């Protein structure tokens, strides 16, 4: 079994229940979802429907109350925290809504940070970042600190960072929520290009109609459950 044959993600009957004082919140309910390599999938649904929680479960930031999560063929549920961290470093890229970058590092340093941790040699790191900065229209901004970049540029650096370490998938939680429509469209173009040309697997959580439109598979969540799952051609 090679990596490309396994699914990027497989969840099997996953539940996440939070206990808040006496109350029980079922944030994710019995979700079984498989995302293949190279997909461009959106998790849509109203606020509070469990999108973020599901992404956190997939990325191993939260442990499921029940069920099983597999990333790149490996059972995250059975792993130690240390191994999950390593799996995240190697196989999962995260893009959050905002504040993705480390303010003390330049755009370039931010983008190569995971590769630094992975021990990728310097010239290889630079080559990958340069190539991705070229694709995402970030060339020339390498030495800027995040504070000197626009919101859209910061998100692009975050996407480059997520992609550059060659993970099995990129999890993006409302990546366009803090951007104006032009910047959102530009970011979506960037991600769609990377998906199409490099085969990067993306899973978004979003309630942005433009993101849903651009996705090729749309998984709708309601009250922690998968309500519908449609793939478009």
């Amino acid at each position: 079994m090679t990596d490309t044959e396994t699914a990027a993600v497989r969840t099997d009957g996953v539940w996440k229940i939070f206990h808040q004082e006496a109350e029980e919140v079922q944030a994710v309910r019995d979700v079984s979802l498989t995302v293949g390599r190279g997909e461009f999938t959106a998790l849509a649904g109203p606020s509070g429907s469990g999108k973020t929680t599901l992404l956190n479960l997939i990325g191993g930031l939260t442990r499921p109350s029940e069920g099983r999560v597999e990333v790149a063929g490996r059972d995250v549920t059975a792993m130690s925290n240390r191994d999950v961290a390593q799996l995240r470093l190697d196989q999962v890229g995260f893009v959050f809504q905002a504040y993705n970058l480390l303010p003390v590092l330049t755009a370039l340093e931010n983008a190569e940070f995971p590769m630094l941790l992975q021990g990728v040699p310097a010239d290889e790191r630079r080559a990958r970042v340069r190539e991705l900065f070229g694709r995402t229209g970030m060339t020339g901004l390498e030495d800027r600190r995040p504070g000197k970049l626009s919101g859209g540029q910061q998100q692009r650096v975050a996407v480059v960072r997520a992609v550059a370490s060659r993970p099995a998938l990129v999890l993006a939680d409302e990546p366009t929520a803090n951007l104006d429509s032009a910047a959102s469209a530009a970011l979506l173009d960037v991600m769609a290009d990377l998906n199409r040309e490099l085969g990067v697997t993306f899973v978004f959580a979003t309630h942005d109609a433009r993101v849903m439109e651009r996705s090729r598979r749309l998984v709708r969540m309601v009250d922690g459950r998968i309500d519908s799952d449609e793939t478009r051609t």
Partner: protein
Amino acid sequence: MPSPSTPRRPMHARVLVLLAMRNLRRHMRRTVLTASAMIVGGALLIFTFAVADGSHEQWIDSGVRLGEGHVTIERPEFRVSRRIEDRLPAEVRRAAEAAFASPEIAPRVVATTAKLAVTGLASSAAGARPAQIAAVDPTAEAGFSPIDDRLIEGRYLAPDDRLAAYVGAELVDSLDLRLGSRFVVQAQDAEREIAGQLLRVVGIFRTGVPEVDQTLVHIPLATADEWLGSAGDVTNVGVVLDTSAATAGVAARVESALDGPISRGDARVLGWREANPALAAAVAIDDFGNYLTQGFIFTIIAFGIVNTVLMSVLHRRREFGVLRALGLTPGQTGTIVLIEGLTLTAASGFIGVGLGLAITWHFFGDGLDISALMDEMTFSGVVIEPIIQPLMRTARLVQVLLFILFIGAAASVYPALRAARLDVTEAMKFDR
């Protein structure tokens, strides 16, 4: 097929250090403020201990010269009995003096002494007083003891003196003596008989230490031989070293040289702490006071560090969340904080130490005059010198540096734990 547990790649410590350094630089004002407290604290720490250790060294030197040296050899019973029958066998004295002259010990030796010390009674027409009689080789003792410099009238003993006595000023007064007066000393002799000896006052001294000035009488060793029938024997052989820090090492070497006599119960080797417990206690109490003060100062500084580092952790929850999402373990995020706190503390603390050394030796290298702060002070049989020569031993320096590192680590542990325990999903939440 991936193995179930991939061994973690060696973490690039450089990356963590880089992040920590950049973060310290980001909050320059806060960093500088905390750092300056630490710099001042480090400098003060060095100054305090340099002056304290320097004055302790003077107390010790003065104390051991009035007594029997940094290291002294005597019979085990002598310390309590102070009787002539508990004097050192001649061959033990020879072995001890040979040990002092050995190449391992000789370079440390500043002066040696061999004396016969007995408790007796000094009497004149005016009455009788208890006396500590030290029979000495006048030339050797003049180099060993500071007592010849404390002369107020007459002179110290000379090599060919016979019936001469060098007497403490208060004993002179209480026996109503003056320079040239005759008086009698009585003590048990080698045959356990009470023997008397007529002496003449050739010199009067005042050390400022009452117990010394009231009781001490120096007489020539040759006079004691005739008086007590001690045949040239002594009760103590002692050595003054160039530094008190050499005491334990020299004592151990002398002990191994005197292996035989010690196992037969004919000799024992004492360091100055054992021979002069009151002096040892005075040094320890003074040290303790300094430890307490410095501990207090550094506790306050440590809270400043905790505050600085913790603030930066609490303001960076989102950043730590991102780092964890990228694949750092809780331990690694905690390590970043630990590095920040330790670097801040160590760098500023070490700068403070350097500054403290520079200031102390630049301004007070020739001695710190504290005479304005005190009248002549004595205690534990020691005269305190009004000029303190600062002293910094390697061991003390290492202790100070380790202490600073410890403070840095201790102050960073809590913030580091806070960073390590961060709930990533909580930290990455956005208000909807």
